[in-house]
Every structure is written in C-alpha cells, then in structure tokens.
C-alpha cells in the first residue's frame, strides 16, 4: 500500500466545502417547497377531485416514484433543449428534484388527509364550527402531528439526494468535493470529510426538526 493519508491539503478547503453544504441545503429546500405545493395539489385532487383527474395524478405519482431521479434530471437537462427549453444545471436539478419529490409528497399528504376521522369533523360541526374554524382548529393540528415525521424524513432524504447535482456540475457539497479531488487527487481524504459533513449536517437537521416537531406539533420523533 503506497497511499499515505494527507489531510492537510484538504482541510485547507474546508470552508469551501462547508459553503457547498449550504448549497445542498438550498437545493433540498427549494425542491422540498416545490414538492410540497405539488403534493398538496395532488393529495387534494386524490381526496376530493374528479375521477379523471385522480387517474392523471395516479399516473404522475406512479411514474415519478418508480423511476430514478438521476435519469429524470438527465431527461430534463439533455432532452428539453431539443424542444427549445434550455435550463441551467441548478434549475434542471431543482426542477427534477421537485417533480420527483412531488410524487412522494403527494402520497405522504394523502395519508395525512386519510388520517382525519369522520367523528372529529362531525363533532366540530355539532359545536357549530365554520369550515374555516374546522380547518384551523381540528384538521390542521391533527394533520401536522401525523405528517411532520414523514415530511422531516423526506427533507433529510432530499438533502442526501441533492448530491447527484454534482453529476450536472452544480457546486454543492459533493460537486465541490469532486472539484477539490480534481485539484489535489487526495480522494480518500476529500470524500471522507465530505461524508463526515453530510453526517453532521443531516444529524443537526434531524435534531432541529425533532425539536420543532416536539414543541410545535407535539409529534414524537426518534433521533437515534
């Protein structure tokens, strides 16, 4: 074994990597917000929409949940230019992740909707609650408690999933690791530190989300 570990060259680039971690979180956040909108729309249609629209949403969810996010982004990034739509790498990645997340978040939010029991709504109606009051005091607290853990998990998974943005040249955490690797060739050191940064970032995110869930929505989440 001729390889000797030299972390010095890599730790010099630590601030650069940490800034990349912020970009990863940014990508995940943007895609998550977009996915939430799509998910809410999809779940609403599935719960209350006409049959033909439900069918369309089902097809969307099935297709995007059963194909790789990487190939979806390949399609968006390389195929759409033929149709005249030219996206930057960052936009293509966020769009691809949004569509992919939209499918999963549709299913998650549908489950949240299904968790409302009819008795709760009937009790609220009996007490003379208006529709807005029912939503505000009965439906939302219940749904948020049920949905917060899976939504948190989805966000963490999307943060990890944003690493494939590196494939398209986006300078997030993994992308920057690849850049530094090309400069220094200290491959093991760079990717070890990158892996460590992912662990730290996602663990911190898990902790924060668990605390938020506990005190805002009374949702219990296990950390380890």
């Amino acid at each position: 074994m001729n390889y000797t570990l030299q972390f010095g060259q890599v730790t010099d680039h630590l601030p650069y990597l940490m800034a990349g971690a912020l970009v990863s979180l940014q990508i995940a956040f943007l895609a998550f917000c977009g996915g939430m909108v799509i998910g809410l729309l999809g779940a609403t249609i599935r719960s209350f929409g006409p049959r033909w629209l439900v069918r369309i949403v089902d097809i969307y969810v099935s297709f995007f949940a059963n194909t790789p996010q990487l190939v979806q982004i390949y399609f968006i990034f390389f195929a759409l230019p033929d149709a005249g739509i030219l996206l930057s790498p960052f936009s293509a990645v966020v769009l691809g992740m949004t569509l992919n997340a939209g499918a999963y978040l549709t299913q998650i939010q549908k489950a949240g909707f299904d968790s409302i029991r009819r008795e709760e709504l009937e009790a609220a109606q009996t007490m003379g609650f208006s529709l807005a009051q029912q939503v505000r005091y009965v439906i939302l607290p219940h749904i948020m408690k049920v949905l917060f853990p899976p939504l948190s998990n989805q966000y963490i998974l999307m943060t990890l999933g944003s690493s494939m943005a590196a494939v398209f040249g986006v300078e997030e955490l993994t992308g920057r690791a690849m850049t530094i690797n090309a400069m220094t060739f200290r491959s093991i050191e760079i990717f070890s530190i990158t892996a460590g940064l992912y662990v730290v970032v996602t663990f911190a995110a898990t902790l924060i989300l668990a605390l938020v869930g506990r005190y805002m929505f009374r949702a219990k989440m296990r950390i380890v």
Partner: protein
Amino acid sequence: MWERIVEEAPAFFTYWNLIFLLKALGATFLLSAAGCLFGFGVGFALAVLRRTRGLGLIWARWLAILFTETFRRIPFLVTLLLTFFVFQALAIDLTLFTIAVISVCLIATAFIAEIVRGGIESVHQNQWDAAEAMNFSYWQTLRLVIIPQAWKVIIPPAFSFFVLFIKDTALASQIGVVELTYAGKVMNNKGFSAALVFGTILILYFALSYPLARFGFWMEKKLAPPRNR
C-alpha cells in the same frame, strides 16, 4: 423533437441495441438484489446485536449503532466514490461492478438494520418477559418467540427498500458500471437524441420497478399484522 425521435427510432430499436439495454437492465436489478440480500443478512445481525444486553458486547453494540447512523446519513454517490478510491489506493483489483455492489451493501446494511430493529421492537415487551419467565435464553427467545412475530413487520419495508434502491443504483453509472443509466449515456453519446434515449431508459426503469412495487403493496396487505395487540 418528435420528428427526430420518429426518424431515429428504427436505428435505435435494433436487435443488438435491445440486447445491450436488456443486459444493462439485468445488471441494475442484480446490483440492487445482491446488495440488499447481503445487506439483509448483515443488517439483521446488527439489529439483533443492538438488542443484546451483555456487557461483553457493549463495544460491538456501539460500533453497530455508529455504523448504522453513519451510513444512513451519507449519500450513495459519496459512499460509491469513497469505496472506489479506497480500493484503488489499496491496489486491490476489483471490477467496477463489485465495487458498486460493495457500496450498495454498505448502504443497504445500515437501512435494513433499522428496518429489522423496528420489526423486533414492534413485538410487545410482554413477549420478552413471558419468554424470560419461562427460562428461555436470549437466542431461544429471539428464534422461537420474537422473530415469528416480527418478520411480518420486517418484510414489507425491506422489500420496499429494495425497490427503492433499484432506482438509486442509477448513480453507479458515475464510476462506469454498465447498468441501465450508463447504457443510456452510451447510446446518447452515439448520437441518438436525448429524449429518445432517456425516455426509453425511464420506461425500462418503470417496467422493472412498478411490478415490484405492486408486489410490495400486495405483500404489505397480505402480511399486515393486526393493529390491536
């Protein structure tokens, strides 16, 4: 765009191209299947280990926790590259496919360990106590009492994870493993339109994943344990 697709389709869907794509599809399936099967075995061992109480195993238990928590929080792409470069540095001559399988094993082990742990913990504490009262050893308790009840909770999410990972193995194309995504890149580089190539690849992935996902749903309904215990 459509004219180009229609024009290129006959040249794209030739016998040899289809053979190439189908072999790549097989490699994708094999990658996930091999990794997840191995991961299930080791993950099961780790989950059982975490449940032990002996002082002698305390370090092993902590290592198991550390492994699980670490590899669940590293993206597959980073694990893949790390594995690739480590074996390169060690000068061990492995095929790219083997390196990819090892990466899948590492990730799969961590996730399936959590799934199995969830299954084991879904069995009520009363069952453990009752077995202990009847003087069962730890391993007897596990084999005769806990596992028969837990496996119904373990199998559906483990299978779902396997289906999920078929899609994640698309990233193995980044180190040159000839699976479905890499095959798509090869075809695209030959000059076929990206829409035709990646559209076909997406459909092939769907054709592979969707039936398995449906089977997973079916299995989940079949095995669903009674909700009241």
